[in-house]
Structures are given as structure tokens and as C-alpha cells.
């Protein structure tokens, strides 16, 4: 299919299929398939909560229990300081929101091509649609956890200031941070199925090297550069900066470094994905 049925480009397009030909129409095609993107995302969301007992509750229980464990271990046992005056639980929660968003996108998107192999083998559409639609699904879980966060903040009567308005920007940043590696892994997963075993490892490992259970203020100055290479450092610090009001200071140099890493992975992920996309149907 060269186009969706309502081609806004006007007139029938000429399409040349050739080996290794760069597709100039790709991004326009992607735009034409936005409805497919929406409908795939909607499908995944509605299927997700069908025939499940715990369903939505799972999205509540997981962050809630993790928050309690982290608050007890890092806050009470290890006696690590929080960001300023913010209660430790709220600080942990503000870090956990983007982390769970990141990790669910990473695991869902990376496997999305393989789970949708029937589509890939039988119909043409820009393949980027599949992992991106899977990423959107993670937003639903995020919204549920976010509601829980709001309740926690109300419980402690800890209210954010105007900076909370910038939160959507950081949500997008978290998605971008996840999508880059997810695209890379999903493309590799089509070729080499072992990559699906790597993902849980990355997620587990990442939880410890990212400031989820602790605050970035604990990181010694000498380690800042290495620490900032983790793209989630910038995202989580950004979340805390938005939600904890003036209590959390954003380390701008480390934030810029994270931004750079995110941009690099996004570019590299899309590049690898685009390069290998045409062979997906032969390999899957």
C-alpha cells in the first residue's frame, strides 16, 4: 500500500521499489498511517485489561509497594537525605514515575515487533508505528501511578509550585529516552531473539544506577560526569525539579549531558530501525 485511502498529496503517486532505495516518502507515509498508530495503541490498551483479574490494580500495587520498600531501605535503614524538605516517600515516588514509564516502554516496545509478526509479514506500513504505539500504551499505567502520586502528595500536604506545569515536557523526555533504545532493541530482536533476555537485565540494572531510591545530591562531585551519562538521571532529576518545588535543584551540566545521550540514542535507534526495517518481513 503506498498510501492510505485519503491521499492528501493529491493525485496518484509514483512509487519505485528497488533494492536499498532510500524512501523519500517515509515520513509522509508515517503521517498517513497515524490512524493505524492510534488504533493499534487503542487495541493494546483495551486488550490489556480484558480477561484479567488484577488489571488496573496491578498498576497501583507495583509502584505503591516499591515506594514503601525504597523509603524504608534508603530513607530509614541507610539514612540517606531527601531533596530538601520533601518527605522521602514523595521524593521516591517522583523518581519512580519516570522510571516505570521508561522500563515499561523499553520492555513493551522491544518485544512489540515479534508479538505483531503476523502484521509485519502480511501488510505494509511504516514499521515505526508498532513500537511507538506500544510506547503509548505505557502512558495509561503512568496516568494511574500519577494519580497515586497526587494522593500521596495530598497525604503529606506537600504541594508543588508553578514548575509542575512543565511536567508534560519531562514526560515526553522520558518517552524519548526509552524509545531510542527500544527501537534499537526491537530491530535487533527481530534478527537475534536473544535480545529479549537482555531487556529485563537492563531494567534491573538501570534501577540501581538511576536515582530512583535516592536523591542525586548523594552523588559525589567526581562521579557526576559518569553518572550523567545515564539518560534517566536527567529525566528523573527533571521530574523532581517539577514536582518537589524549590526543594530539588537541577544540576544543569549533568542534565545537558543526559539530554545529549537521549538525543543520540533516539537518532541511532531510528537510524538502525530504518536501515533494517525492510528486511523484517524476511526474518521475522
Amino acid at each position, binding site marked *: *500500500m503506498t498510501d*492510505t*485511502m485519503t*491521499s492528501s498529496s493529491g493525485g496518484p503517486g509514483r512509487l519505485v521499489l528497488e*533494492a*536499498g532505495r532510500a524512501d523519500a516518502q517515509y515520513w509522509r507515509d508515517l503521517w498517513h498511517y497515524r490512524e493505524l498508530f492510534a488504533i493499534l495503541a487503542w*487495541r493494546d490498551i483495551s486488550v490489556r485489561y480484558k*480477561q484479567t483479574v488484577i488489571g488496573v490494580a496491578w498498576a497501583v500495587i507495583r509502584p505503591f509497594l516499591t515506594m514503601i520498600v525504597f523509603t524504608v531501605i534508603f530513607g530509614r535503614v541507610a539514612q540517606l537525605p531527601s531533596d530538601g524538605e520533601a518527605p522521602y516517600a514523595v521524593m521516591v515516588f517522583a523518581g519512580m514515575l519516570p522510571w516505570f514509564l521508561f522500563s515499561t516502554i523499553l520492555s513493551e516496545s522491544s518485544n512489540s515487533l515479534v508479538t505483531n509478526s503476523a502484521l509485519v509479514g502480511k501488510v505494509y506500513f511504516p514499521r515505526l508505528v508498532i513500537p511507538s504505539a506500544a510506547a503509548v500504551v505505557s502512558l495509561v499505567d503512568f496516568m494511574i501511578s500519577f494519580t497515586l502520586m497526587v494522593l500521596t502528595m495530598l497525604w503529606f500536604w506537600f504541594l508543588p509550585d508553578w514548575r509542575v506545569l512543565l511536567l508534560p515536557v519531562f514526560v515526553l523526555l522520558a518517552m524519548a529516552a526509552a524509545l531510542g533504545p527500544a527501537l534499537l532493541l526491537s530491530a535487533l530482536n527481530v*534478527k537475534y531473539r536473544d535480545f529479549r533476555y537482555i531487556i529485563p537485565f537492563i531494567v534491573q540494572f538501570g534501577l540501581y544506577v538511576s536515582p530512583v531510591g535516592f536523591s542525586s545530591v548523594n552523588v559525589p562531585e567526581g562521579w557526576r560526569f559518569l553518572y550523567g551519562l545515564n539518560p534517566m538521571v536527567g529525566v528523573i532529576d527533571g521530574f523532581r525539579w517539577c514536582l518537589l518545588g524549590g526543594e530539588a535543584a537541577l544540576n544543569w551540566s549533568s542534565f545537558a549531558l543526559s539530554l545529549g545521550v537521549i538525543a543520540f540514542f533516539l537518532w541511532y535507534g531510528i537510524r538502525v530501525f530504518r536501515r533494517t526495517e525492510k528486511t523484517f518481513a524476511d526474518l521475522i
Partner: protein
Amino acid sequence: MSDVVIRAEGLGKKYVIGHESTERYTALRDVLAQQGRRLLRSARDMAAGRALIAGEEREEFWALKDVNFEIKRGEVVGIIGRNGAGKSTLLKVLSRITEPSEGRVIIEGRVASLLEVGTGFHPELTGRENIYLNGAILGMTRAEIRRKFDEIVDFAGVEKFLDTPVKRYSSGMYVRLAFSVAAHLEPEILVVDEVLAVGDAEFQKKCLGKMQDVAGHGRTVLFVSHNMAAVQNLCSRAYFFQKGRKYAEGNTIDVIKQYLSTDCSELVTAGYISDKPRKGKQDLYFHRVLFNKTSGSSSESNPPVTGAPCEISLKLKGDPEVRGSARMGITFKDAFGNPLFLLANEASTPSILRVEDGSCVVCRIEKFPLTQGKYSISLFLEVDGVIQDWIEDGLSVEVEAGSFFGTSKNCPSGWEGKAVLVENSWKSTLQERNYHAS
């Protein structure tokens, strides 16, 4: 603008396939060495960004090679050929699912491809939801689906079950709904693969009608099918593919004739069939098939004769370890591939049929019921519930003329090669009364 909507120039598609070496490893050392080599190679492949291919040896395989053609606006072109001739690969290239390895295709206009009905159907979703989902996957917009929604539901005849998850649908309803969505696509170029092989006869007829409508509206249609009758009905022109190349093209009837004569050229005479394309586990497989085998060491096949007894001998080969009770079947098909009758031991012979490597199974027909002509046959073998060998295409047999009814005629002229004969007699009451009166 020229009237050519699809032009292929030197089109080729290459796949790389791997073979396991057949050597059996007994020593642990050998197994380790082999695994090591494999790991090393995989690592090398990954570093070079190549796909991993199982097996020791690699072979390039051209599914399509040097294909050239032009299709004009409004033409309905049939593509025929045996399994593995490259038809499906061609459709995949045309519908952009996979890219060609060489050559190019120029397409003017919007293409919709239908390689399967119900692509992306989700069992948990309702009929209504699946219509939107499947429509979007096939490239329709939401507005377009909404506009045609009633028509789609009506065509499929599933009004009552619109809000039931499709996993509760009968397979017939499922297919009807799936095809109905596809049938309402309105592209300029439609590419269809073998989708009519599903559904009951009535629905198939409805689909053919719908496709004829599509073709009638000046749209270009590419139609792949094994159903020669459908190709003949729908298409004005046809291409015959063989071994990845376009072997013949032209007027549909001429091409079908050529296809049938080529297809039937490999008659069962010496009866060795090891090279035929087949499915199944292959621990035990058909080695030879012989009709009316002559006794003696140099067994040969003698063509079956209409009305005479016929014995079909099936020689099996394979792993000496594999033995068990068999379910076997021989299907006779006419030149168009329509099945005429089936011989199955399960139905006709209650006693257990035990088979193993070297077995020769004989199926006897007391009075061979086919008229003179060429027929194709397919063979099926299942041992202890495992499908071992299944040859669907590529075997054919020539039946010689004989008398079935003991009369001078077997069938009206023109029915040779397509009729199954059954014992019968006719009389009229008028005749009887006259007879008694006299």
C-alpha cells in the same frame, strides 16, 4: 501519462537458506566442536550485522529471478504456478512487505494488498472493534470505515454478533467478517493472494462476485490462485510462473492450458517421487508410487484403465526406528485441481495398517471410476498421529480408456478427463407401461 500502472524490470528476490549437515554426532568432543564453530560463526555474523541462519551450509535461493512485465490500467491479471514458483514472493514485493534484491518495480497509483484475510484480527475484541482495526491495517481511514460499516456488516451477515468477541465466532463467521472488510477496500490497484480458498461455497461465490465488481470499476487487479476456474472467470490475462521466472503470459485460457500441460508432464511411470515438494516430518516418506505394478524385480507402473481393477502400490522409506499404525490417503483431482474422490484406509478398512521403512502398502479399487485423461493425485501419510509425508502437487497419472458400464460409451463426449463414474441405470414409467401393454 502512460497507461501502464505496474512495470517490473529485471525483478529478483534472493533468500539465503541454511542446511544442517547430515552427519550424526556421537562423540561429545564432536558435539562441542560443532557448537563452538556455530557460536563463532554466529558471533561473526552479528558483528557484521548479518542475519543468523541455522545450519552448516548456506545456499542462495532466488525466489524470483529476472522478472519483467507490464500491467495496464483496468486489467485483471491472474498469476498461476505451482507451489514455490515465486507467486507469493512477487505479491510481497509488489505490496512493499519485502524489498527486491535486484531490479525494480514502478507502480502508479495506490496499492492495497490482501495476502491474508483477517490480518491483525484480535480474538478478544468484538466484531465491531475488529472491523475498525482490520480496516485501519488494510489502509482505510476511520471515516471511510464508518461510511461503509453497515455495508460491511451486511455483506458478512453478522449483525447479531457485532458486540461479541470474535473468539466466540464460528470459523465461517470469522472468515466472512474478515473478507467482508477486505472486499470493501477501494484502491486503484488490488493485489490478492489465494484468499478465496476459505469460506463455504456460497460465500466464495459472493466474494468472486464482489471481486468482479471491483474489476468492473476500472481497477487493476492482480490475482493469485490455484483455483483455475476462478482465474478463468476473473482474469483477461494471466502469467504463468515457474521456478521464480515468468514462464508464459498471454490470454488466460491459453496460459492455463500451458500450465496444465506442464504441470501434468511429470507422469507417474517409474514412480520415484523423492524429489516432489512435500510437507510433514519425513521420518517415513513415500518413496515410490506405482499403478498396477508388474510382478518381478523390475517393477513398473501400468496406467489404470477405466472400469478395470486397479492397484496402487505405495512404497515407503525412512528411519528404521519409526513404525506404527498409519492413516493414509490418496486424493484424485481433476486438471483444475478440484478433488474428485478420496481413498482413505481409515474409512474403508477397519483393521490397523502397520507401516515401517520398506513397507509396500497396496490400495485396491475394484472398478476404476475415472474416464480417460490426465488427473493429478495427492498422497498423505500419518503415523501414530504425526503427519509424516504429504505431497499435494506434482504427481499425475494418465488414465486409459476402458469400458465401465460394459457399454460402448463411458460418458458424453467432452467429459473425458473430468468425470467420476458411478454404476447407474435409467428407466421411465412411460416406457414400462408401453412394455406391459404390448
